[in-house]
């Protein structure tokens, strides 16, 4: 391993600009002549707009334009789209209601976009928003998804008269029923996966700019996938054809899924820029982020698991209601279906699985992918089920899991996925050792002596990453292919630019991608620049989400590097006057086998560009290669997390005493960065389990719309984490990478809840397990203990 190659904990190249305040986030960019946009948002969850009077705002100081849904319609601007078609059990397509960027006659959630004011200053735009008068006819809202389809419920979209988007299923119902018929024990559980608000620290922002001389648009935006944004804005919303629309996603301050989607605000800014003839800038404030960023999770599930008399799992059946909010966001439809149900086999050999999912409209913000997207929901179901089943059957939860682990690979589950490789027992062994599981009983007794309740909880998670083989996702309803592209440009002096369709918003691609190049070409990482986030520079790409940038994005780079080396060998052969077959490339030097004649990589690059040695031959000058990489399978990172915690029954305060995470991510490029990803994921997972929860009141007001009301994990809520690694390289991509970005957020919630229920000695506590909820449960436990 070289100092900067694969496997080295290289310090990040991008950090200098961030620690010196020189990062360039969207709100840091200002365009000459720029104007400012402020949105009027609906204060009501469900209402018809009877009258919209913008005259007062139009006359206000500094106002340049006040635009509404009527203006969008007049200009033929299309609505926002959902790019993944789901079909119901009966074969009918999902019921997608219209989603205009500015309301057209009706508002459907608090925060929905009614109108936009564009003014000289932000203060003027905000002042003028208050001068718009709207006459709303209030409609009864649908807030509780459990009752969304009740007869007599208000109708949110005419296309879905019962508020049902789809009624979908996966798996073999007959085989599953047969498995339950021969079961000796059945575990049943009602499970709620609480609604979360992503809260990347950088609020979303957009600047639309229009160049009338060339009839071309530029959009600066906080996006995880600028090319997808351009595609949707061009092909579906109809702002401009792709060659007339440049989308730039500069430094982006965290995404976690919430910046995948194409939202109303950027659509309006880029459209309005042409209308007002000046750049239009919008930066969301935190309350707007709470109200109108796509939320995550929000499932209600009933699950049943069948076991034989020894505790072998025979079958699993799951029925889930998924809240999709008021409109279908960009990828919302696939999250509770194809990103959820295929993961319900977990790490276990389960012969039969049947899953039913109902997608529902409610008068709440749209719900879409949030770190893990479907996979945390699946893991929460299966890992709660096995924990409860083990306890009900009087078995050790680690031993129960181990008994049911898949032990031979490849393994075809009954729900689509074919796991290529893994060693779940190895991760369990290491986790038990690191967590000192054998002495847990003593620690529990010591806690009890202090009047504290100690619990331990496991989570043996799996996820499907490296999203995804294009043909596979196409057959499941995706409107796009999920390959990735790369271009490697070698300059005449031997420095290298890599253009990638992946997008870094904290993941450290500028470092890890450069490590791959360094490793392969034998040059330092300082000789490598990673270019991303600009549709005028990078031809096309699908962006970053689903832990795909290593497994898919870097595989594309690897393919392009193969081509670069192959061509450079031809150049070297001419330059060294040898046959191509005799050229060897090692540690950055091309040499003629069995001789001392060699050229450094940079010298060969120069030869490629001056072309003196092969002019007129069948070899083109230059050294630049591109590649598209389409994965052949998902990748399957897995691991075991163990949470040990202590509850103070007098206050309900839960303190995490010890966190052990053992993960198998396949091959790792930079262990320092991978550990950082694990830390952040665990923190979000603990946040979901203990602290975070979006709450709408019965009228549809979001009562958790600021950091005073929505409890974000802070430094003093969390422990330090013990991280361990096991490795089974992925067999389906050239680098053996599985992906690490979402693991922690997937693994953590069931580990926490399993530990709390272990401490309390009874089952099922809702997330977030706040001190109040834990205190109530602890009192019940104490009463029960006293009675015994």
């Amino acid at each position, binding site marked *: 391993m070289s100092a900067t190659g694969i496997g080295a904990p290289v*310090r*990040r190249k*991008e*950090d*200098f*600009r*961030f*620690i*010196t*305040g*020189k*990062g*360039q*986030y969207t*709100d*840091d960019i200002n365009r000459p002549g720029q104007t400012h946009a402020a949105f009027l948002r609906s204060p009501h969850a469900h209402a018809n707009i009877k009258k919209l009077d913008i005259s007062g705002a139009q006359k206000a100081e500094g106002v340049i334009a006040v635009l509404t849904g009527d203006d969008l319609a007049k200009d033929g601007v299309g609505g926002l789209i959902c790019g993944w078609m789901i079909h119901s059990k009966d074969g009918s397509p999902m019921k997608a209601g219209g989603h205009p960027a500015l309301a057209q006659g009706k508002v459907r959630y608090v925060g929905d976009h009614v109108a936009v004011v564009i003014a000289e200053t932000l*203060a003027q735009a905000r002042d003028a928003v208050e001068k718009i008068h709207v006459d709303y006819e209030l409609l009864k809202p649908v807030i509780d998804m459990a009752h969304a389809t009740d007869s007599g419920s208000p109708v949110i979209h005419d296309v879905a008269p019962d508020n049902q988007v789809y009624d979908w299923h996966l798996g073999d119902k007959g085989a599953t029923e047969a498995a339950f018929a021969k079961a000796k024990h059945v575990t049943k559980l009602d499970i709620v996966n609480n609604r979360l608000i992503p*809260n*990347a*620290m*950088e*609020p979303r922002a957009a600047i639309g700019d229009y160049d009338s001389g060339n009839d071309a648009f530029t959009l600066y935006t906080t996006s995880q996938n600028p090319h997808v944004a351009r595609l949707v804005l061009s092909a579906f919303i109809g702002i401009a054809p792709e060659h007339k629309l440049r989308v730039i996603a500069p*430094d*982006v*301050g*965290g995404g*976690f899924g919430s910046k995948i989607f194409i939202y109303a605000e950027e659509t309006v800014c880029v459209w309005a820029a042409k209308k007002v003839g000046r750049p239009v800038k919008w930066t969301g*404030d*935190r309350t707007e982020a709470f109200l109108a960023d796509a939320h995550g999770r929000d499932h209600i599930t009933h699950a049943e698991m069948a076991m034989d008399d020894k505790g072998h799992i025979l079958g699993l059946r799951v029925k889930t209601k998924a809240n999709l909010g008021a409109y279908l966001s960009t990828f919302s439809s696939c999250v509770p279906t194809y990103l959820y149900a295929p993961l319900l086999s977990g790490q276990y050999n389960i012969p039969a699985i049947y899953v039913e999912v109902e997608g529902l409209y409610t008068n709440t913000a749209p719900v879409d992918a949030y770190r893990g997207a479907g996979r945390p929901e699946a893991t929460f179901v299966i890992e709660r089920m096995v924990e409860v089943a083990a306890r009900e059957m009087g078995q050790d939860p680690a031993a129960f899991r181990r008994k049911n682990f898949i032990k031979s690979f490849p393994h075809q589950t009954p729900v689509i996925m074919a796991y290529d490789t893994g060693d779940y027992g190895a991760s369990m062994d290491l986790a038990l050792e690191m967590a000192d599981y054998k002495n847990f009983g003593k620690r529990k007794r010591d806690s009890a002596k202090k009047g504290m309740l100690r619990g331990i909880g496991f989570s043996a998670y799996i996820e499907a990453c490296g999203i995804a083989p294009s043909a596979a996702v196409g057959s499941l309803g995706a409107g796009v292919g999920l390959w990735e592209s790369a271009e490697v440009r070698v300059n005449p002096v031997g420095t290298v630019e890599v253009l990638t369709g992946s997008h870094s*918003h*904290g*993941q*450290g691609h500028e470092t890890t991608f450069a490590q791959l190049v360094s490793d392969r070409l034998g040059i330092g990482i300082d000789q490598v620049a990673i270019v991303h986030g600009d549709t005028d520079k990078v031809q096309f790409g699908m962006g970053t989400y689903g832990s795909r940038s290593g497994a898919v994005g870097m595989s594309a780079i690897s393919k392009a590097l193969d081509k670069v080396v192959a061509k450079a060998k031809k150049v070297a052969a001419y330059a060294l006057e040898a046959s191509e077959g005799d050229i060897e490339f090692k540690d950055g030097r091309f040499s003629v086998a069995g001789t001392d004649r060699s050229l450094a990589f940079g010298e060969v690059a120069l030869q490629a560009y001056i072309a003196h040695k092969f002019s007129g031959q069948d070899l083109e000058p230059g050294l630049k290669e591109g590649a598209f990489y389409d994965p052949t399978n998902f990748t399957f990172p897995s691991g075991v997390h163990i949470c040990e915690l202590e509850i103070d029954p007098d206050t309900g305060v839960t303190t995490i005493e010890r966190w052990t995470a053992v993960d198998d991510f396949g091959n790792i490029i930079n262990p*320092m*960065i991978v*550990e*950082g990803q694990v*830390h*952040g*994921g*665990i*923190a*979000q997972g603990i946040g979901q389990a203990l602290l975070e929860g979006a709450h709408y009141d019965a009228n549809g007001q979001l009562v958790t719309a*600021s*950091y*005073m009301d929505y409890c*974000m*994990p*802070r*430094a*003093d809520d*969390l422990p*330090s*984490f013990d991280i361990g690694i096991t490795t089974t390289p992925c067999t389906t991509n050239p680098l053996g990478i599985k992906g690490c970005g979402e693991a*922690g957020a997937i693994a953590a919630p069931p580990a926490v809840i399993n530990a709390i229920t272990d401490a309390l000695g009874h089952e099922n506590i809702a997330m977030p397990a706040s001190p109040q909820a834990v205190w109530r449960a602890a009192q019940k436990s104490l009463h029960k203990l006293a009675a015994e």
Partner: protein
Amino acid sequence: MISVSMTVNGKAVSAKIDPRTLLVQFLRENLLLTGTHVGCDTSQCGACVVHVDGKAIKSCTTLAASCDGTSVVTIEGLAHDGVLHPMQEAFRENHGLQCGFCTPGMIMSAIDIVNRKGHDLDEHTIREELEGNICRCTGYHNIVKSVAAGAHAMAGSK
């Protein structure tokens, strides 16, 4: 419009501003010092922390006018002659940042913690003192390590 004058990162600045201008707006929009960020506008997240007369404050809820006559230091004012402040170096060395958005506020708060609590900081103290700075990426694990290392390094650089 009112006049304000202050020293920012060692340079005297003065301007006529709308009285409602916040310090963070003055820094970002008038002085183009965009390293100071706005993450929440309710004094909760700490992305906007700067030092005013040597003390950490949240510039998103401070009027620029109230800082008339003060000396302000922002993230851009920490490195001198290309040499990073030890706390900046500690964040880089310990992977104390991912997306970088909360980082300027974290570093400014961390220096303030050291100024108030000394150079030998235990984990519990660091976690409690970081209560006013939210990070969504790192899980704080490496930020805590960075602050401890930076605190030690600041002792050595005195």
